[in-house]
């Protein structure tokens, strides 16, 4: 046995086979895409649930949800296109360029399925946004009323809610279906992103419903705040399971990214909002804004940081150094 082999074994070997791969350079457009995509998908889901199970007073929040979903889907598409090295070839994601106009869909490739999901989700979210704009008499078209009729509303709402949850979670599955450190070492990034996505969507709707001319009644914002708190508790559990699932690769978090995960995501993004929800009296003298709104802002900061650290902690791992001189 050589000295190097001995050193490798003494160090417990390479943490994972994922350390021999190259980073994708998915960074400054992909982090906001993952964040916005989670909010858009979650917002549609929440609006659809309120559409079915809510009350007439919930309408301002329902409308905001569909607007956020439509704008978020559009922004997601834009971020994805700008991130491509050849943006003008974005349509190659959907159409076989060599066999135009034959479509291309690979069910075993999350990026392929995700491209179609974004297209469909964007279409449904835009349809619903137009429908509620017309319902609220912001536009004078009559035809969108049919979209909220007894036949189309359930179809669009259920399809959009399912697509929304898929859209919020597939980005995590996409990361797991790689061979990169952290991403390829756990199958729990999808669950983490779907919980965080819907949680940040609830926070966004809470903030939007509490501002502007058309404020939502306190009852619906309370329900959103309650729901978000349950999601934060669930996120804490999933995050712990995710870290355990990494095995030896968990050591990668002994870094700046781990500090950001602990302080930014767990502390500021989960624990403080939970304390603001369950123990608002602790903060009352120190805050100028209502505790629920402060919590919502922190949830959004935590949601963004979660995606940033999950991506950057892996992207910054270089090729394993044993391939060079030792």
């Amino acid at each position, binding site marked *: 046995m*050589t000295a190097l082999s001995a050193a*490798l074994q003494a160090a417990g070997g*390479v943490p994972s*086979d994922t350390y*021999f*791969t190259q980073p994708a350079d998915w960074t400054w457009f992909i982090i906001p895409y993952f964040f916005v995509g989670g909010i858009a998908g979650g917002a549609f889901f929440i609006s659809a649930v309120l559409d079915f199970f809510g009350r007439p007073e919930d309408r301002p929040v329902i409308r905001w949800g569909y607007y956020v979903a439509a704008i978020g889907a559009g922004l997601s598409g834009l971020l994805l296109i700008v991130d491509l090295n050849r943006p003008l070839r974005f349509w*190659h994601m959907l159409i076989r360029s060599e066999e135009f106009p034959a479509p291309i869909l690979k069910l075993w490739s999350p990026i392929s399925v995700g491209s179609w999901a974004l297209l469909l989700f964007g279409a449904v979210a835009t349809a619903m946004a137009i429908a509620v704009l017309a319902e609220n008499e912001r536009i004078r078209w009559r035809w969108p009323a049919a979209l909220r009729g007894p036949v189309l509303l359930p179809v669009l709402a259920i399809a959009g809610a399912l697509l929304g949850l898929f859209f919020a979670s597939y980005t995590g599955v996409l990361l797991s279906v790689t*061979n*990169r450190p952290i991403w390829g070492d756990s199958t729990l990034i999808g669950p983490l992103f779907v919980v965080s996505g819907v949680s940040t969507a609830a926070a966004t709707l809470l903030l939007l419903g509490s501002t502007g001319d058309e404020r939502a009644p306190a009852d619906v914002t309370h*329900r959103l705040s309650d729901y978000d708190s349950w999601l934060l508790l669930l996120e804490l559990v999933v995050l712990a399971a995710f870290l355990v699932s990494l095995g030896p690769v968990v050591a990668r978090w002994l870094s700046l990214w781990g500090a950001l995960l602990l302080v930014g995501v767990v502390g500021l993004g989960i624990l403080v909002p939970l304390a603001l929800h369950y123990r608002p009296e602790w903060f009352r003298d120190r805050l100028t804004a209502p505790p629920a709104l402060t919590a919502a802002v922190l949830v959004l900061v935590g949601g963004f940081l979660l995606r940033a650290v999950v991506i950057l902690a892996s992207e910054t791992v270089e090729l394993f150094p044993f391939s060079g001189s030792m």
Partner: protein
Amino acid sequence: MAEALGFFTDTTICIGCKACEVACKNWNQLPAAHGGMGEMSGHSYDNTLELNGINWRHVTFVEQFDAPYDGRWLMMSDVCKHCVQAGCLEVCPTGAIIRTEFDTVVIQSDVCNGCRACIPACPFGVIGINDVSNTAQKCTLCYDRLSAGLEPACSKACPTDSIQFGPIVELRERAQRRVAQLHGQGEQRAYLYGADPDGPLGGLNAFYLLVDEPEVYGLPREPKLPSFRIAAASAWSTVTALVVGVLGVVGLRKRRMDEIAAGKADAEEART
């Protein structure tokens, strides 16, 4: 399909001359790094450092010395493995990555849109963006030369036949004989990496004879297809989405149900 073709690289006779790197760069007209400006890596005699979009061959240098003149050099000319089950081909959403009639894996530059999904999917870190074409690129196993009945540029240039090109079936037999020869000469550490068609990724169409752990050469021990995680990742995501959904339905309509319950209670009270 024509016969599966590939490389057998015998690292014990590589002398680190880098003729393969030069021949590859030359034939495929690949650009220099850093705009041609010299930049020393400090890693042994290796300034190429890795395989990527502009380096389709890379000679790895490993210095194993406990003291001056007390140790050995390991050198290995690395390349795309043209995996029988290729992760890059699997995830590519555009269909730019194809399997050719020679059982090799090629990226069509005119189809690739630079989404970079193939880069983290490759378990060997082979693929990178070529800044000239702005698309993902890697070794084509000289598809143009094979189509013309020629040998790939790198193996043609290799002065020691460390890189051997040919039908995979023949190369495997030749490699087994070489391992037996080395064992007979007392080099018991010799073994084949990636030659087993029943092994990881269905075998590699560019396989190696090594004399140390795979990690020492920068190779993963058990390379995996990225899609082997898709079922578990999707299942966990679905279960979690269901929990999120149920919490949503229960939580967001809770007050309404409470009110209905309260209304019923009031009605009961009024009746009694």
